[in-house]
C-alpha cells in the first residue's frame, strides 16, 4: 500500500512576515523556515499507517512530496529523517506565485508521475489540516477533486484500514462524524491525531544522502500557463495592515472607583 504525504515549507513565525510597502508583496527572504507544523502530524500518521500495514503482513511505502523553491529540499529531508521512504521536490521558476488551485494542479501532476513510475495508484494521500502561512485548508480538497478521489478533512483518528477501505473520525461542527471511504482517498489530519516523532540520528544521516528528484514543468508535462501565477485564477490586489482605529478610554483609580466608572459606562452604552 502506497501512502503519499503532501507537505509545505513555511515561515517559522508567520506573524513575522512583513509587507514590502513599495511592491505590496510579502517579504519572505531571510525568514527562518520550518516544515508546516500541521504537516508533521500528516507525516507521522503516514508512518503509523505503514506500521499498521506491516503488522498485518502488507508492504507499505511512504512517499513525501512538496512544491517549493530549491531550499524546500530540507523539508523533505526532515520527512525522510522521520522515516519516510522517499521524496520528490516539485520546483521550477514557473511554479512561483501559485494560488491554491495552481498548487493543487501541480501536486496532482506530480502524483500522477509517481503513479506512472510505480504503475500503481497511490492508495492514501495525506495532508496537514492547513498551512500556517496560507491558512486556507483548500489545497487538500482541491487536489482530491483533481485526482478524482474522495476527501475527508480534519481527521482525528483512523479507526480501521483494509485493502479497499478506511474508516475514520473527522471533526465536524458540534462533534464528529464517523465516516467510511473507499480507497484511494485523501485525508487532511487534525493537529493532535498523534505525537510526531523526532528524527533519529540514523534518519538524519539517511536523509542527507537521499537522492531526491527535482521535477519541473517539463518533467510534469505541464504548460507554463497552467502553473504558478499564470495558472492561478486569483490575484492579490492590495495588502495592508489591519486598522487599529479604536483607542481605549483608560479608566483609572482604585479598584472600586474603576468598577463604578466601568459599570456607569456599560449601562449607558448597552
Amino acid at each position, binding site marked *: 500500500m502506497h501512502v503519499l504525504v503532501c507537505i509545505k515549507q513555511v515561515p517559522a513565525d*508567520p*506573524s513575522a*512576515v512583513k*509587507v514590502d510597502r513599495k511592491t505590496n508583496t*510579502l517579504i519572505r527572504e531571510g525568514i527562518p523556515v520550518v516544515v508546516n507544523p500541521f504537516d508533521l502530524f500528516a507525516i507521522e500518521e503516514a508512518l503509523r499507517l505503514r506500521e499498521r500495514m506491516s503488522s498485518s503482513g502488507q508492504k507499505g511505502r511512504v512517499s513525501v512530496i512538496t512544491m517549493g523553491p530549491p531550499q524546500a529540499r530540507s523539508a523533505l529531508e526532515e520527512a525522510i529523517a522521520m522515516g519516510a521512504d522517499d521524496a520528490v521536490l516539485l520546483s521550477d521558476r514557473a511554479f512561483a506565485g501559485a494560488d*491554491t*488551485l495552481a498548487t493543487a494542479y501541480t501536486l496532482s501532476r506530480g502524483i500522477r508521475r509517481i503513479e506512472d513510475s510505480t504503475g500503481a495508484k497511490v492508495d492514501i494521500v495525506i495532508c496537514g489540516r492547513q498551512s500556517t*502561512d*496560507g*491558512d*486556507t*485548508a*483548500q*489545497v*487538500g*480538497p*482541491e487536489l*482530491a*477533486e*483533481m485526482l478524482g478521489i*474522495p*476527501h475527508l*478533512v480534519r481527521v482525528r483518528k483512523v479507526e480501521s484500514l483494509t485493502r479497499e477501505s478506511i474508516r475514520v473520525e473527522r471533526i*465536524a*461542527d*458540534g*462533534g*464528529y*462524524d*464517523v*465516516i*467510511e*471511504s*473507499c480507497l484511494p*482517498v485523501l485525508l487532511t489530519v487534525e493537529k493532535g491525531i498523534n505525537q510526531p516523532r523526532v528524527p533519529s540520528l540514523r534518519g538524519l544521516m539517511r536523509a542527507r544522502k537521499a537522492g531526491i528528484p527535482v521535477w519541473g514543468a517539463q518533467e510534469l508535462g505541464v504548460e507554463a500557463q497552467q502553473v504558478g501565477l499564470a495558472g*492561478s*485564477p*486569483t*490575484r492579490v*490586489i*492590495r*495588502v*495592508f*495592515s*489591519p486598522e*487599529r482605529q*479604536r483607542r*481605549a*478610554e*483608560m*479608566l483609572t483609580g*482604585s*479598584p*472600586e472607583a*474603576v*468598577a463604578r466608572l*466601568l*459599570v456607569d459606562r456599560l449601562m449607558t*452604552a*448597552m
Partner: protein
Amino acid sequence: MGDVWIFAEVSEGRPLDVVYELLGGGRPLADDLGGKLAAILPWGADQAGEASTKEAVVRDLIASGADLVYVVQSRELVLRQEEPHAQAIYELANQYRPDVLLFGATTFGLSLAPRVAAKLGTGLIANCTTLSIDKGSGLLLMTRPAFEENIMATMTCPDRRPQMATVRPRAMKRLTPDPGRLGEVLTVVCDLPSPGARVVEVVKEDQDQAVDITDAKIIVAGGRGIGCKENLEMLEELAHLLGGAVAVSRPVVDAGWAPESRQVGQSGKIVSPKLYIACGISGAVQHTAGMSSSDIIVAINKDPGAPIFDIATYGIVGDVCQIVPALIRELKGRR
C-alpha cells in the same frame, strides 16, 4: 448574469446562522451587480419527509434576502457528504452561471467549497471578512486576514467565473426578516452518483453543550493573567451577574483549566458579542482574531503595554484579582 449565489448549509432541517449572514452580505453585492441573490438549498432524503419544513425554510430564506431559492433534491444530499453536494452545485452552476458563489466558512463549507472550485476550475478565497463590488471593474473584492491576522489582503478572481469565497461566521450582518418579501423557488431533482465516502455515524460531542459561547451576548474571558484555575470561578460569578458566559484564551485551555469548547481565537471559536470583557488577556493576534468584532471590548490587564488595549473600548490597568471582585461588588450593590 450578475447573480450572486450562497450555499444554504442545513443542519437538522434548519439553515445555519451563517446562511442568513451570507444573505445579508450577498444582498448589496447582487444589487450592485444588478443580479439576483439566490440560495442553494440542498434537500436530501433525511429531511425530505417534511415538506412543510422545507417550505418554511424557503420562505425564511426569501424573507431574509433571497430573490430565488434553488431547492436541490437528491437522496444523496444527506449529512456532510462533500462529493454529492459538490456535484450538485457544479451542475447547477454550469447551467445557470452565477457571477459570485459564497459559502460559510464552517467545517463543511471549508471542505466543500474547494471541491466545487476545483470542479469549476475557478479561484476561491478562504475566510473572507469583507466583500464588495469594485465600481470600475465590477469585480468582487474579497478581503481576508492573512499571516495570523497581521496583514489584510484583498483579492480578486478576474477572469474565471464564478468568483468564489468562503465567509467567516459572524463577519456579516443578517437582514431583518421581511415576511412580505417575494421570491421564486426552483426545484431541481438531481440524479447523483453514490459517493466514495459515506458518513456512517454523526456524534454530537460538546461536553460543555449547555453553554455555546458563540451565542452569548456577553462574554467574560480569562487569559493566562488570571493566574490559576480557581480564579475562573470569579469570572463565572461576574458572567452570571451580567447574564453572560465565560470564555478563555488558548493558554488557559493548554494549561487544562478549561475545555476547548470555551476557547476563543484563531484555533478556537469566533465570537462577536455585545460586550467582551478580557481579563488577563494580553491580546495576541491569535486571540483577537476570534473576538475583535465584539461591539464593546473591556480590557483588564496588569501590563499597560498589552496589545489588547489597542482594540479595547475601555481599558483598566490593574490586577484581575482586584478589579473583578470590585466589579462583582459594584454590580451586586446596584441590584
